[in-house]
């Protein structure tokens, strides 16, 4: 159940610059796609560029797309984020759909490195009514009380016990139906 076997750093969920509070700013600044024009490993990337890239660029006008055709190199993409982080992904022998999938994955990231979230929520205001301290809900009478005290020294009344409740029920039945034989 522990997470020590993971080499992932861990942290609390956060977002750069209170993104989303005022307006949402897509964090992907630019994406550079390097591919070969002839080698087979770049086939998926080439197909993606020919078919889906324009639509991607239109739906994400806040992201600059750079294409780098380089001979004899395996394809890769490097995503740069607004907080200065870069992410490298090798696209060697990806299919066109895989390229699209990973590109849209890059779009949804902020540059904050992948980490294990310790909690899936975060708040800057963890308490509204105030953190509990031993004085919360204490009766003010304890300030001037002399112990042992009549009321304060006794255990807090939790209400009638089960035995007492049964006796009450029994008495009630006796009063309602005196003719009936009382239950043993």
């Amino acid at each position, binding site marked *: 159940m522990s997470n020590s076997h993971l080499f992932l750093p861990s942290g609390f969920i956060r977002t750069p610059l*209170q993104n989303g509070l005022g307006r949402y700013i897509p964090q992907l*600044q630019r994406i*550079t796609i390097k591919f070969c024009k002839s080698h087979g490993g770049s086939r998926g990337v080439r197909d993606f560029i020919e078919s889906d890239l324009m639509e991607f660029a239109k739906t994400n*006008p806040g992201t600059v797309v750079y294409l780098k055709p380089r001979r004899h190199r395996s394809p890769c993409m490097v995503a740069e984020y607004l907080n*200065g*982080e870069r992410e490298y992904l090798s696209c060697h022998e990806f299919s066109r759909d895989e390229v699209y999938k990973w590109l849209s994955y890059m779009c949804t990231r902020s540059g904050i490195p*992948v980490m294990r979230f310790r909690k899936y929520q975060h708040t*800057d205001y963890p308490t509204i009514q*105030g953190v509990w301290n031993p004085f919360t809900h204490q009766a003010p009478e304890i*300030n001037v009380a002399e112990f042992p005290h009549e009321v304060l020294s006794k255990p807090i009344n939790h209400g009638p016990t089960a035995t007492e409740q049964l006796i009450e029920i029994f008495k009630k039945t006796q009063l309602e139906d005196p003719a009936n034989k009382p239950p043993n």
Partner: protein
Amino acid sequence: MAALWKTCQQCLRYGFTNASIYTSITAVNVISKRNFKAHWVAPTLRELQRRKVIEEDRGGGPKIFHRSTFLEWNYDAEIFAFSNRLGEKFNDSSLRAALTHKSYIERETARLSDIGVESNLQFQDNEALAQKGGEIMSKFINGYLRAVFTQVPEELIRAMHDYLTSNPTLETVAKHIGLGDLMLCADFPCKTETYVKSFKAVVAALAESSGEERARIFVQDLVVTQLYGQDVNELWNPVDPIGNLTAILKREGKAEPEFRLIRQAGSNSILAVYYVGVYSDKNFISEGAGESLEVAKEMAAREALKKFFHTEDSMRALPFGRQLKNIQSKIAQLENQPNVPLSEWISPKIMSAVH
């Protein structure tokens, strides 16, 4: 048997090279896959890293390059993306002027004159825009603060405004919207003042291009949100809270504040705690805790003032985005109308101002 072994080998190799994709398990931002590396790769990389470290130490840190020195750089595309990223429309000339610094123009003209070329540059710098941007940004911030913190004295409004317009805050905002790569300036790595100037100039350019309304919403969404998560009471505190509390209650016509010890524990130890409550005419106002009676008294008075100003820990969350739609006109109205200063603060007066 040999044929079976060969097929097995091929299957294994096929299975491994058609890599399944796992998320990274190292701290480096590489989405890694399973790869087999030859025995000489690791020692080579280790040696190269060792030499790189030596060179960097000799050169005084790792070499950094401006993004525009890369081959894949298109300034026009970057500017287009910048305006779309923020969801705003800019006049091209205004935006380019906002991002151009005087130092850059001077450097370029000097460079060209060194070569001997006639410098016919038509660059416009961002001095005027930055000045104007600073003014309107202050105006918008003050309007928002006064509309949201209606009961707060002007001193605290000023403290919050100073925090929001401080250089570190604006530099962070400027960096995170991508201004670092777009600015044309002579200094690299860019100084704080350069970032701040660019950001202010961008605000002014936006006001020029899309109107004051959009610029107001822009400042609210990007600058004022930096107040979220910050405890406003850490930014400013009245110097004499007990005196202020007494004065306020007197102005309101209420009884003098009476401080009473409510709780105490560990009086003779280091971890002593005293809770002091403030009462006015036997009505409870607030309580405060401290390690000594004097501290507890002051904290109680501070809590009482927080209650009056509506800046307690349990105050309402700051409104942003759509929640501001209804009060934008009120914000605009209050930009020129300062809140009541502490010397005049009393509750009936605030209520009558109809904020």
